[in-house]
């Protein structure tokens, strides 16, 4: 019994962890790299979900449909960046207000154009033995880890990654090193958008798709980004781990509602204890150890 309970807890943790990671990474890239708080993040996810579900309904195989979702969201993000977002660099709070406006418009336009529901996609892959959850959740977890790994590789190993990080650290110097920083921002935003689209695509089979679909991701994403702090990858992983553990543990003991409340309260406490997020704390700690300058 204890073994099964532990297994259930493990499965639940995996499920929640994957959800938070996938909901968060896109937002984290955009916030961490560009200092834009994208309150329309949920609606970027929405774009991914709609593109996926309509591509699937039109007969595309699921992986292709999901790819469509990711690509369309990235393109959508690119267009939005050129039209609106690029005027908001360095205006953190304004970026919140404007993207909230964008979110309002997108939800309602989706409703006007597509109606209140979208065709559903069944959950693929069937069920797991022992814990009796969908296999698909494990797939999601694998993808989540894969995304983190991929992002790590992208930002640490490729020229693009080095340039993007350089731009983030010191735009003027990066520019003088021949980096077209405008294009860097543009492509970073597109990457962030694409990741949001990926979350939408991956959860399209699991969650019912409605114009309000995106809001289901928003809170977890926000809380995780803020708790995580400025460092995109480390922050996302640690925050998702922390919040996922709290949520899964409390859910297991006291039900879904208490799990959610506990997670939010954990977030409040975490922000209070670590005003610059987990990675801010890590940086301080490292500096105190004498590694800093």
């Amino acid at each position, binding site marked *: 019994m204890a073994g099964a309970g532990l297994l259930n807890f493990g499965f639940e943790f995996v499920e929640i962890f994957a959800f938070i990671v996938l909901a968060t990474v896109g937002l984290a890239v955009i916030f961490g790299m560009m200092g834009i708080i994208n309150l329309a993040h949920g609606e970027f996810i929405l774009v991914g979900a709609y593109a996926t579900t309509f591509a699937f309904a039109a007969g595309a195989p699921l992986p292709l449909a999901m790819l469509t979702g990711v690509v369309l969201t990235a393109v959508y993000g690119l267009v939005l960046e050129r039209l609106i977002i690029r005027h908001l660099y360095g205006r953190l709070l*304004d970026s919140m*207000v*404007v993207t909230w406006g964008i979110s309002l418009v997108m939800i*309602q336009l989706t409703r006007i154009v597509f109606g209140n529901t979208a065709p559903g996609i069944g959950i693929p892959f069937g069920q797991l033995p022992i814990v009796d959850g969908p296999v698909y959740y494990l797939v999601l977890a694998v993808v989540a880890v894969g995304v983190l790994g991929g992002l790590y590789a992208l930002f640490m190993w490729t020229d693009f990654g080095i340039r993007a990080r350089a731009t983030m650290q010191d735009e003027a110097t990066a520019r003088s090193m021949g980096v077209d920083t405008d294009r860097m921002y543009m492509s970073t935003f597109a990457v962030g958008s694409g990741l949001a689209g990926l979350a939408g695509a991956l959860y399209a089979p699991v969650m019912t798709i409605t114009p309000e679909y995106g809001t289901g991701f928003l809170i977890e994403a926000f809380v995780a980004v803020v708790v995580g702090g400025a460092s995109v990858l480390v922050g996302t992983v640690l925050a998702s781990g922390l919040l996922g553990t709290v949520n899964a543990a409390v859910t297991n003991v006291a039900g879904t509602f208490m799990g959610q409340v506990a997670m939010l309260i954990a977030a409040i406490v975490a922000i209070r204890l670590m005003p610059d997020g987990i990675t801010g704390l890590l940086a301080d700690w490292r500096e105190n150890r004498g590694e800093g300058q």
Partner: protein
Amino acid sequence: MSVDSSDGPLAAVRRPFEGPNTMGNSPAFWLGLAVAVAVLAAMPVLFGLYAAEVGAVFLAYALLGMSLAFIWGYCGILSFGQVAFFGVAGYAFGIVAINVATLTGLTVALIASIAVSTVFAAALGYFMFYGGVRDVYVTILTLVVALVLYTFMGQTAGGEWAVGDARLGGFNGMSGVPDLAVGVGSTGVEIGLLGHYYVTLGALVATYLGLRALVNSQFGYAMVATREDEDRTAMFGYDTTFIKLVVFTIGGAIAGLGGVLFTTQNNYVDPSVFGITAAALPVVWASVGGRTSLLGTVGAALAIQFVDYRLALSGSEWALVLIGSLLVIVVLLMPEGVAPRLHEYVLEYREDADPSPVPREPPAATEEVSD
């Protein structure tokens, strides 16, 4: 600034409410304001009880908006959870008032509910500011607090979630909240529909004047200095953390006042006051109206809610699209908001009109009109 006798005795009355921290320090401005208040006061006379009922709700929103303009525009604290104080005060009033629905009880309820929102704001402010939480983290933290309340109040449907006779009521909300009343024992007044409108209008005007006096006081300068550059201000001997705490607490009290007036108008409060849409509204008003202008934010709150209302009445599904687009456009084109931009135009116009300007000569107070 200085008492300049040229405006007669009225100048002395105006004096505490004027200063460079507020726009609109001229006789023309005050005349305009008086006319605007008179027009608002005449609404129920002209248009009947309906205007009073709907108008009171808008005015309560305006108070909420003003509370945000005050803390954001004057002290640089963007709270995305201003509705938390608004809603908490509403619930607090309901709990006390439902249990003791006597004149005394209702008076206590009024005081208690504002006290609750004030203490709540003070506690949250202490928790944040003394913990070094700053900037955007304050914004998100306050939003999360509102969302926790939303989630929590939403599941309080069961009978066990009751304080005395007052059921919290879950998503269905708390109904049967009595009207506002003031008095002790059997002497006092119950405030009816029409009365409620005037009480709300009075509260709005009084709060506005109070805040104007405050922001033009010594403390107001300290607030503005803290907004402009917190570290530097500390170097002039100000305890900026404490200043932020006080400002945040006052903001919570005003939002709470708005919440009580809102709840007693509707005789009802539900968790949606804590929801993300409600939470965003004050930010929208302040952004559009101009967060450094109390009156601009009030105007934006009234105008946006009114337009929104008309669009809803028309049955148009484009209402939200319009509101959202408006927000994007205003913030992109007028980052500082509508009222400050208008103010600039007025100043320019005045300079143009006067060919030999002695620009802002000391120490006569600047004459300007706005809002």
